[in-house]
């Protein structure tokens, strides 16, 4: 091969040792983007997929047409949820580092996504989350201790030891099961929403995937079916700038925002400041309203930053600058909502610290309780023969036989 390659290879704006560079990120000033009626034609609102809906301005004030109706009390509660998610993540991360659970994934920096969207949805709406939506489970009523027991695979584990940590589900709360396979839940959400419309019900579905996951086939299937049948579904792309070691450009984000991915199918896209609690809430409500009124799917790109490692299995300092998060122009969602509340006179640094401590204690108490149901090293332990249940609705003969064999061997 004599001549020089002309293959374009996307290149991250900064790698370890280099200065973080977010100049590629196009921002709109808070309040600058119009809020169209929810029955607007897709064509007329294409700008929403490249502009960025933002409500909180540089002075932490809520401005513009997307500013939602929220009283201070509600905002405090929301802040509390985001802080709880973070406190939970921090503890679980430590716990994994101590070798007391086998794996963990945190959502640091992305807490507004799960909480603001959970607040905007109704309990009857069905959520198909990714592994970084722990906030959804919590907000919808999954107890800390149950989340922890899942991570411990102990006797109270909702998954009976079958799933890796963080692969929760909650049937009663209408939160689906997390799959290890990326993006597979996206068409599920669309099918669920189609069934809802088919049954004449008002429930909508929502699903979440990362920027990296948009390259998967299921992303295309989901958008295609959602567009064709005008399924009442919100398809969220959480663009936290990174997959594992590859940046969002490696997923095709170099030229157009992910929010634009559905335009060619007639699916409106909204690009939103994913770290702005109020903006995320507002666009989600808009999309939910549109879906509920028969307006079909909306694709929401939530621009945020993965504050932590991809998972406990990797070390991000190997592939991105250590201080990248600190330089991220959209900041930290918890910090921003806190400052907004303070600017409104409805919160203070002292209260915040106090609440942080309270939540730490709450998490710690839950952890203590969770361990009572068993840890990796100490009982009570789950009965391994549970592993043969639920492969089928009823256990077939060969599994009965294998269970018998296993019990004989283990003796």
């Amino acid at each position, binding site marked *: 091969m004599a001549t020089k390659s002309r293959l374009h290879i996307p290149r991250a704006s900064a790698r370890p040792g280099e200065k973080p560079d977010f100049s590629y990120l196009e921002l709109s000033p808070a309040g600058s983007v119009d809020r169209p009626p929810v029955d607007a034609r897709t064509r007329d609102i294409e700008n929403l997929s490249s502009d960025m809906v933002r409500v909180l301005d540089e002075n932490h004030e809520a401005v513009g047409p997307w500013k939602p109706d929220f009283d201070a009390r509600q905002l405090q509660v929301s802040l509390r949820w985001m802080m709880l998610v973070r406190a939970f993540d921090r503890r679980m991360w430590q716990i994994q580092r101590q070798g007391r659970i086998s794996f963990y994934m945190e959502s640091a920096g992305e807490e507004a996504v799960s909480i603001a969207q959970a607040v905007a949805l109704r309990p009857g709406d069905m959520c198909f989350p990714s592994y970084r939506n722990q906030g959804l489970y919590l907000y919808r009523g999954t107890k800390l201790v149950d989340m922890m027991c899942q991570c411990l695979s102990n006797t109270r584990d909702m998954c009976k030891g079958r799933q890796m940590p963080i692969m929760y589900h909650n049937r009663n709360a209408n939160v689906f099961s997390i799959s290890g396979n990326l993006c597979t839940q996206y068409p599920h959400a669309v099918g669920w929403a189609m069934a809802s419309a088919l049954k004449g019900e008002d429930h909508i579905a929502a699903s979440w995937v990362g920027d990296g996951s948009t390259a998967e086939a299921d992303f295309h299937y989901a958008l*295609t*079916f959602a567009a064709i049948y005008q399924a009442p579904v919100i398809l969220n792309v959480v663009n936290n700038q990174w997959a594992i070691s590859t940046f969002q450009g490696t997923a095709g984000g170099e030229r157009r925002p992910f929010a634009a991915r559905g335009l060619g199918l007639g699916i409106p896209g909204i690009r939103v400041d994913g770290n702005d609690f109020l903006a995320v809430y507002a666009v989600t409500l808009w999309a939910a309203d549109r879906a509920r009124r028969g307006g079909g799917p909306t694709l929401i790109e939530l621009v945020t930053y993965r504050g932590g490692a991809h998972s406990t299995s990797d070390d991000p300092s190997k592939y991105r600058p250590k201080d990248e998060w600190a330089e991220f122009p959209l900041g930290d969602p918890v910090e921003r909502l806190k400052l907004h509340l303070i600017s409104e006179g409805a919160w203070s640094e002292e209260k915040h610290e106090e609440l942080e401590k309270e939540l730490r204690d709450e998490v710690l108490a839950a952890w203590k309780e969770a361990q009572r149901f068993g840890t990796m090293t100490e009982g009570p332990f789950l009965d391994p023969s549970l592993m043969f249940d639920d*492969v089928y*609705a009823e256990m077939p003969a*060969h599994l009965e036989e294998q269970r018998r064999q296993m019990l004989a061997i283990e003796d």
Partner: protein
Amino acid sequence: MAQMNMIESIRSAMDVTMGRDPHVVVLGEDVGYFGGVFRCTDGLQRKYGEDRVIDAPIAEGGIIGTAIGMGVNGLRPVAEIQFADYIYPGYDQVVSELARLRYRTCGDFFSPVTIRTPCGGGIRGGQTHSQSPEALFTHVSGITTIMPSNPYDAKGLLISAIQSDDPIVFFEPKRIYNGPFDGDPEKPAVSWSSHAKGEVPEGYYTVPIGSAEIVKPGDDLTIITYGTLVHVAQASAELTGVDAEIVDVRTLAPLDIPTLADSVRKTGRCLVAHEATRYSGFGAELVATIQEECFYHLEAPIERIGGWDTPYPHAFEWNYFPGQKRIAAGIRKVMEAE
């Protein structure tokens, strides 16, 4: 009772279940207005509406993926994949999601999807309209794999499948849609009306999943097979004059081991046959199971016959297809052994 071919009985299974249960929906490519390229869904859209018999885009993974979501939301989706050869784009959704949803959520979530798909060769369909990929599903824990060999079983099993809370891959051997086929392509086509299993009740009935059937008792050897080859095996046995017991597996997973093993214990000899590519096919599982269960009763090595280990070649399909000559030779080999 009515005379039905396999297309009609399969259609009737869907009709009957849709009539009984408003949650049953059908989706797939060309299944709606057109009634399916093999006509299996003909008339159903007119009867049940465009939103219960849904024309889908050409996206097998999307069909299965959305069907899963519908199932989670209380429907009972019956998804048609136009040819089994086109199921692979949906393979991940079957293996990673459909098969394991109940397991990973301890039964809190499940999706009772039935995937219907025509399989097998003999219609000059070449390598992309002839495959029998059942072994790629029997290996997947959580999936029930079925392949009927006649109209009566097809309807009864399909009703059971649609009603089952387990995910099911339901293979329809297209060569016998219109009539039983004994493996001789030169003979004029035969219709199901001449066959006992072409008598099919119009209404509701079920054939249980997980049970094999002895379609012809015999003493000399056991032929274990399924789908089109059930008929070819019978003709082949007749050709040799050997008194073969023919077992139609019907449900490939989970397997009805007692029926199979009892037969081989009785006859002491066994031949396993399927149309799919032989190497690492489902026949291997049948042979392995029988040698485990019946080792001390076996008087000869179990003979295994399948399609050759090549893609299904268009012009040579009758050389590829395990027809009477090959099965008869196999029977003779097993009978002569020892």
